[in-house]
């Protein structure tokens, strides 16, 4: 027993130091030196203040901004710490709806959401794509599909009083294709797009 316990214990402690301290600290050093922007969360600053991360969705509700995908993230209920309350785009507690495909509340909620999105975009020129009315897996999906961008484009152009063609050119510039033409899906990063809009057509505050 002791003959086995001793190496098991010593090895566990030694490996905890090697793999739990030395390895992550060395990786942090190397990552910070090689890829400092990514290692610190791909943050974007504007006028010296952090406005978000290019990889993390943030809430946009105003008509002059493109809207991200719905988010089902939650936060602790301030009134009762054992319960949670909806808190969309909560980047300190990622998560999905985990709704079942046959859930009554999910189907009814989706119906209501579709009607709301259609009402917000009365001039849409393409069919409503599924990604714009389904909650993402992380609740922080920074992308929408190119079709979802095109769907919202007339609304944004109208709210900013700019020609649709000019706006479409910006969207096209920021549309990312599949990696190497093969991997993943085409997408548009909502935060980068909205920052580009504010840069090109500044809004009166």
């Amino acid at each position, binding site marked *: 027993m002791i003959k086995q316990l001793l190496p098991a214990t010593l*090895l566990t402690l*030694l490996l905890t130091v090697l793999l739990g301290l030395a390895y992550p600290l060395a990786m942090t050093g190397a990552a910070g030196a*090689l890829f400092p922007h*990514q290692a610190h969360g791909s943050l974007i600053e504007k006028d010296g203040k952090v406005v978000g991360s290019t*990889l993390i969705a943030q809430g946009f509700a105003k008509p002059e901004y493109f809207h991200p995908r719905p988010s089902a993230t939650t936060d602790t209920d301030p009134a009762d710490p054992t319960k949670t309350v909806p808190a969309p785009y909560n980047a300190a507690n990622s998560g999905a709806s985990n709704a079942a*495909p046959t*859930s009554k509340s999910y189907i009814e909620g989706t119906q209501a959401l*579709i009607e709301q999105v259609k009402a917000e975009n009365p001039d849409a020129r393409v069919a409503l794509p599924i990604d714009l009315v389904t909650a993402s897996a992380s609740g922080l999906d920074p992308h929408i599909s*190119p079709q979802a961008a095109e769907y919202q484009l007339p609304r944004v152009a109208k709210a900013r009083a700019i020609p649709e063609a000019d706006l479409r050119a910006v969207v096209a510039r920021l549309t990312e294709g599949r990696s190497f033409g093969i991997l993943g899906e085409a997408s548009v990063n909502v935060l980068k797009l909205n920052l580009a809009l504010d840069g090109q057509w500044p809004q009166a505050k």
Partner: protein
Amino acid sequence: MNAAGILQIVVYFAVLTAGAIPLGAYMARVYSGERTWLDPVLGPIERVIYKVCFVKQDQEQHWTVYAFSALMFSVVGLLVMYAIMRLQALTPVQFNPAGQAAVAPDLAFNTAVSFTTNTNWQNYGGESTMAYLTQMLGMTVKNFTSAATGMAILVALVRGFARRQSKTVGNFYVDAVRSILYILLPLAVVVTLALVWQGMPQSFDAYTEATTLEGAKQVIAQGPVASQVAIKHLGTNGGGFFNANSAHPFENPTALSNLIEMAGELLISAGLVFAFARMIGDKRQGRALYVAMSVMLVIGIGVCYWAEAAGNPLVQAMGVDVASSDLAPGGNMEGKEVRFGIANSAIFAAATTGTSTGAVNAMHDSFTPIGGMVPMVNIMLGEVIFGGVGCGLHGMIVFVIVTVFIAGLMVGRTPEYLGKKMESREVKLAVLCILIFPLSILGFGAVAMVLPAGLAGMSAAGPHGLSEVLYAYTSATGNNGSAFGGLSGNTLFYNTTLAAAMLIGRFLIIVPTLAIAGSLAAKKIVPPSAGTFPTHGSLFIGLLIAVIVVIGGLTFFPVLALGPIVEHFALAAGTLF
């Protein structure tokens, strides 16, 4: 389904196979104690570890001692990890900027068991529960050691085949240390840096407070993510740094990082198949198992992709465009991310459950009934579709023993595999390994279905609620760790019963497997004769797959019929719950 999606599946297999073959050759050298090109760097470190830990490098162990060493190593690791979580409040602020408090006893126990057994089931959200230091000293370390334990068990079993009339099967500590130093750690370093390059954070910064363009406050959790995520995939662990696991943009930023993670979680398991073939000196045997595993994986990916691309018919009926094109992913996008779309979510779901990884890049709970049944069935078949590192192949070899036994019954000869006669003892032990699985899954599932504490955890009504509970015990027993996430598992009932299922699924299978190894090592090797059933041809591959599917099917079809299958027909008929 479209051509672009199918091409991604082909690319995935090409990348995987191209990596697994050379890695297999390298791993065979590592386990045979031969020199490798990393020896000049790692050799001195290895020798220091043995010296400090009183490991006698040249002293081989009988299978019972080997098993006891593996158990001791796991028990000590479990206790250390439990202590780290219970003492979390003492963590210095630099390593706990979010000020996470001590983890509750039942949750800490469940989590310690979960990471020790390579399950990595999570009844907590990482960013809202664990300090950076806990993620490093606890989760990251266990990701290495639980993987190395599985690899060591496999190596012992392979030695059972390779040796003749031997009393010993190797030294557990040496096999575990060499797995970590020569295989897991070097790969983890490379993968960590690749993932950071793609956008994964690796820092000790406090959670960042941003002011969004619309003026709201957003707290962005981060941390030393990449170093943990790299080994989480390589070691088929799957426990996420963040609650959303590999769906979180920080835990899987791009389509390329997704490919790295998906290939990473199969790489070592697939490579071990080739290493096994080299160690027994017959490459054809490895090829046969690789084909059998790949065929089952491709079928799973195909069915899942088809079901998810078809989407939810009820949502489609509301006038939403679910067609996939170059401009939109289409299909069922609830609980999925745009950058991955449908094809990569299906590959990931099948790969993470074929292996015992259990990471997710899309939420299985929101899959269509058939799409969600694929990951569940993959685990139910015994985690042998490549499986966990080590565990997958030793599980597969158990099925091989049953297959040659059945083939032997058909022709009336004593079955043999790789020159070893499979006699009553080996076949009994193999069947024991197989029976433990349904006993735990269906047993615990049935208990949860009749106790109020079990029923309280379900978030969905109707057949989907049963699927959630069934998936939980399947995942725990299979040491997978993925979930139908709607289940509220952080309760005393689920924390303890799931922990029990994980321990059963790990150790009650390791011990009989090592017993087989010991029994085989002691046998002579008989040269193949005209009556030997060849185990490298397509006939054998077909028979092996049939045995796995029939055993899994007979065991689990009734309960699947009550869960996902009836839900599929309910969905088609428009019935809601």
